[in-house]
């Protein structure tokens, strides 16, 4: 078993859109024009120079009873399954049944595969109580379906997502972290970095996908994540206009509420973005020293296979 990911879900649930937007930089407004997927398609993902895996995306019409050898081989390498449900396509019976069948098929080939369900297209204009209703309803439907089929022991993690805000990035990141062996070590390293510089929150991002590979143990606030992931765009866009993206760089954004966002290139495609109070940024050389310490610590972690 490698660390690959397989994705299932009915047609037009949003699987291809998410993959294209995250990994192939497709503009969100162009996802409406995408053609349906054929059988199974795979995407090779490289995050920085140390993280490599494949995503196998199965068509919405994929017949689980008719798996060909390459597809079986693909499922065998997967340690993680993402099922995407279109929350705007009620009733959910068909989607829920297909989920149950997909889990059965994949678990046959890869018994330790983790199951994650994206309750997708829960767009920003939907009110919070409606969001909760959807979450509860779908969770219940799935739980009932699994019970009916004596599959109570299967654990499914749920994520509420939309491509129109940062939730898709947030949850895809959290799911990817399940297949990264280093997340815990990097978290410890980030904790000590934060402490040394009086930083409130840090994220380690892969900048092309905007997925975050690790964070510190401080509480996760969506707004912090949003600001940091948007800062990547500012850095990339300005750097592409005035210089080359390959060069190491840094950026700072000062906000009117007294906080400051600090962006620092760590190595190829990997950057550290931190949030702190601007009054704590007294000695920039101290920050630079600690970032170098962080880089060295990270290099050590990646050396361990």
């Amino acid at each position: 078993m490698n660390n690959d990911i397989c994705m299932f879900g009915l047609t037009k649930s949003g699987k291809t859109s998410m993959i294209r937007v995250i990994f192939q930089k497709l503009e969100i407004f162009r996802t409406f024009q995408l053609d349906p997927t054929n059988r199974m398609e795979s995407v090779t993902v490289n995050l920085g120079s140390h993280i490599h895996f494949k995503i196998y995306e199965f068509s919405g019409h994929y017949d689980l009873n008719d798996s060909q050898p390459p597809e079986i081989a693909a499922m065998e390498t997967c340690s993680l399954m993402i099922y995407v449900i279109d929350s705007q396509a009620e009733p959910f019976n068909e989607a829920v049944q297909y989920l149950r069948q997909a889990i059965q098929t994949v678990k046959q080939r890869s018994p330790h595969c983790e199951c994650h369900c994206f309750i997708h297209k829960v767009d920003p204009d939907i009110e919070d109580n409606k969001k909760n209703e959807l979450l509860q309803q779908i969770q219940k439907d799935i739980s009932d379906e699994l019970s009916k089929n004596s599959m109570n022991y299967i654990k499914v993690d749920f994520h509420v997502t939309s491509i129109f805000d940062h939730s898709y990035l947030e949850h895809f990141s959290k799911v990817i972290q399940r297949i990264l062996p280093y997340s815990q070590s990097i978290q410890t390293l980030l904790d000590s970095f934060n402490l040394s510089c009086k930083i409130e929150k840090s994220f380690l991002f892969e900048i092309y996908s905007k997925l975050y590979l690790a964070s510190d143990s401080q509480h996760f606030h969506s707004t912090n994540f949003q600001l940091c992931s948007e800062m990547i765009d500012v850095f990339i866009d300005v750097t592409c206009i005035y210089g080359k993206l390959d060069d190491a760089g840094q950026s700072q954004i000062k906000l009117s509420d007294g906080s400051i966002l600090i962006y620092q290139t760590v190595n190829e495609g990997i950057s550290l973005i931190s949030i702190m109070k601007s009054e704590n940024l007294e000695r920039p050389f101290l920050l630079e020293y600690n970032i170098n310490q962080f880089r060295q610590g990270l290099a050590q972690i990646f050396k361990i296979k």
Partner: protein
Amino acid sequence: MSQNENKMKKMLLMGQHKVGKTSMHSIIFANTPPNQVMQIGLTVDVNQNSFKFMGNLKINLWDCGGQDKLLQEYFTTQKSTIFSNVEVLIYVFDVDKEGDLFIKELNDFKTTVTSLSECSPGAIVFVLIHKFDKIKESERKIVFERKYKEIIQRADGLNIEIKDVFSTSIWDETLYKAWSQIVQNLIPNINVIKESLKAFCQTCSCEEVVLFEKSTFLIIDFQETTEKKDIQKYERLSNIIKQFKLTCMKTQANIQAITVKSEKFTVYIDEFTENTFIMLAYTDPSIYPAAISHNVHHAQKLFESIQGSDTDKLKYLIQRRP
């Protein structure tokens, strides 16, 4: 004579219905992100919105709903209400309309511009050919030139000045380019600002200086010490910073300063006057952000001690420079 009196400038925004007029000004002035304009409904009448710009400039934007029966009223019963005292008309075409639909657009355009020339003879006209994201990159130039010819021809002979024709889309920087130019035409004493910025650029010895309006991030002016061909980049900056600003607003915070530094360049963006942000770009790697911010803050300090309009402040700054 100081510019302390509030100047109201009337701006008409017209075009057929669903062409994207309301979405456009929501994005530029009301800080709606592009991916939320789908929720904007049809404009049923004329919506007036006022925006403060550059201190004492007030823009009164008349967003005129574009359904046919409304258009008929504008040209007849409401003609003098709509078309009098207009400084700028912005007419929006939908790039996707061809054949009969395009001809109808052109006819409505001609009637609009005719009415305008009768009621506001000094008005200037900007034309936006919108939704260009629907056209393949390779075909954009041809489509633009073809439509441009037809549009200019329709306005021929009328006593009105078409200042410029732009291709725009809400999904890239072309929207910012068009609106920056439109708004620059309304700023009183724009020439004083240009001269002042030029002097400031030389004093700071940086390669590029750009002045942005604070809440829209539209470009007021830019100066370069070396002649560069890529003017598009400033519009891209407007777009980039505005996007980030929108995310900030969710946390009730505003941008105060942005620095981006790499081996080969330093870009420094800071609050400048009450209504502007300034950007300085250096390609000398030895310049430290601290030195740049010192220059800018020095200029700001001079400003703080002066009353008066933004342009007066800038004039004073230039006179004070050694």
